């Protein structure tokens, strides 16, 4: 029962995100050309350092780089070419891994990042919101105070530092879980049960470090929302006509959760940022680790490629959240009467 207003809402978000994407890719285009000291020449000088042993590769890469950045052409042609390529999914050729395409390097690592971030974010969201709601419901009891204090502290722990603590404690001290990677060295990823169990073992610590530290923020926000909604007119009225407390609390929970869904969209960026660094700490072979590798060798085509892909995924996720929001909030689905 998609009404006109819902379609309009979705369309508006879509247009907005598309514009945002164009702006973001434009930044990618402008940066290397605008920053003083011409980073492109840096790239070239860097190139010879990286691939000293293979002069042929250098020359090829150099030529390639000139072509890819379209140097020598007027800037607007460069821009049109750049955007055109970006929309086609052609992100150029890596320098470090020459002659492999940037896209071919990124695609295999994306699943690792997705598998880590998606479940961790959703679990943290659910747990955090439940805890926050519980605290608000038992306002001013020790449960509330405990949850609030805990959340305030936990929400300020960077994922990656919690990761370090976990590695040290559960991996190094107790020896319960592996300390790095996504699977044991030497194994080849396949669909066997043994590999799954091995990957799972490696998964627990990075997963937990994201879940635990992301939970705090949700709990704090949800607690405030629920306290606010508990004092709202509909909650009071429902009580006056004899609605059971449990039911009223479900109403309050539902209505408090709606803004938290929008909050999820807004927080995706910082969750991603934190998760990328967590991958580095765990040597987890995801996008963050690839980005780290690219940064240490100043492989600019690869850096840009990772950036473009990540930004696009954040916008896509944003759009999905918006879509879900439009589905679950009737005020958007049907359109509020002014």
């Amino acid at each position, binding site marked *: 029962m998609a009404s006109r207003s819902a379609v309009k809402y979705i369309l508006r978000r879509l247009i907005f995100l598309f514009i945002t994407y164009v702006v973001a890719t434009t930044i990618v285009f402008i940066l290397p050309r605008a920053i003083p000291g011409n980073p492109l020449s840096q790239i070239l000088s860097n190139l010879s350092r990286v691939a000293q042993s293979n002069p042929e590769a250098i020359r090829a890469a150099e030529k390639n780089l000139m072509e890819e950045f379209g140097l020598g052409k007027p800037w607007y042609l460069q821009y049109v070419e750049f955007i055109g390529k970006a929309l086609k999914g052609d992100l150029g050729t890596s320098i470090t891994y020459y002659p492999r395409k940037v896209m071919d390097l990124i695609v295999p690592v994306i699943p690792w990042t997705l598998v880590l971030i998606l479940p961790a974010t959703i679990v943290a969201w659910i747990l955090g919101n439940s805890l926050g709601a519980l605290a608000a419901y038992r306002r001013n009891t020790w449960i509330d105070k405990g949850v609030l204090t805990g959340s305030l502290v936990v929400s300020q722990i960077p994922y990656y530092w919690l990761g370090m603590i976990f590695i040290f404690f559960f991996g190094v001290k107790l020896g319960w879980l592996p300390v790095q990677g996504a699977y044991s060295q030497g194994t080849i990823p396949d669909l066997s049960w043994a590999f799954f169990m091995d990957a799972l073992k490696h998964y627990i610590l990075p997963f937990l470090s994201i879940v635990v530290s992301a939970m705090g923020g949700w709990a704090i926000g949800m607690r405030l929302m629920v306290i606010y909604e508990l004092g709202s007119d*509909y909650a009071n*009225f429902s009580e*006056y*006509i004899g609605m059971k407390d449990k*039911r009223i609390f479900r109403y309050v929970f*539902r*209505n408090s959760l709606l803004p938290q869904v929008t909050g999820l969209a807004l927080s995706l960026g910082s969750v991603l940022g934190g998760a990328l660094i967590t991958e580095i700490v765990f040597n987890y072979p995801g996008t963050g680790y690839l980005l780290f590798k690219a940064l240490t060798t100043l492989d600019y085509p690869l850096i840009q490629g990772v950036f473009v892909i990540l930004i696009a995924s954040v916008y896509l996720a944003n759009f999905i959240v918006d879509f879900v929001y439009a589905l679950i909030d*009737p*005020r958007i689905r049907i359109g509020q*009467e002014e």
Partner: protein
Amino acid sequence: MENVLLKAENLRAYYKLEKVSVKAVDGLSFEIYEDEVVGVVGESGCGKTTLSNVIFMNMVKPLTLVGGKIFLKVNGSFEEISALSRDEVKEKFWGKEMTIIPQSAMNALMPTIKMERYVQHLAESHGLDARELIDKTLQRFKEVGLETSWLKRYPFELSGGMRQRAVIAVSTILNPSLLVADEPTSALDVVNQKVFLKVLMSLKRRGIVKSIILITHDIATVRQIADRMIIMYAGKIVELSPIDELLEKPLHPYTEGLLNSVLTPEPEVKKRGIVTIPGAPPNLIDPPSGCRFHPRCPHMMDVCKEKEPPLVEIEPGRRVACFLYAGERT
């Protein structure tokens, strides 16, 4: 006593703050008869909204019942609801025997579910058959002048006036005997105000509710539907009287001042002129000694500063708390 629905004896309810108490309801005694409309009138801060909380025993910290008793007639016999806890009163009487139309009725319905679902949940909460209650609501929707198909909608799809009527329909669905309406018309335009009053009275005429307490600052509105009027000032009842007598001849100086400050589009008002009561209502943390109105009263006597005037009946059905009428007693 047999046709009394609600009886309050020397009710006192304070907002107990850290160091001080706000004496918002301070020694109120009155009764509400079956089949009547009583208007509770007073200016902001006189304790009239607190009174509605007290009637429901809706004591939420820091509001505390300090003393007094409230009785409600349930199935022919009186229950002392002031002896029960808030949760017990809520469980036993809210929505069933007593109900409310809140000040902010526009936002009173759960916004993100359809009204039909809401009624289903209400049935569940009261242990009733959902289908039956929905049918009853449909009937009630017709009675308050709403399309029955609107029950399948979300509250925000209705206009403000219609939402208010939906609230009336839902809140009276279990035929409670007492309805308390707290400033129900202040958010409506005058045309919808009148519609609201009509709906209210039709519910009473059909016997869906027995008695109505209308809490408001607007005497002219009360005048349209009330049988009796309670005038409150600074946490106390200063006058309680049938409405026509009160308008004819207000007894308490405060009542008189209040009446003469009302501006309605009537030639009588122009002739009468407008009166101001000097000063401002006292704060209720540390109210004036004796009669709380004495600092603003044009007829102030020495005794008013020292002693508190009791609320006494000086004519059949007319009670006033003022020393001007001390002689007329006995």
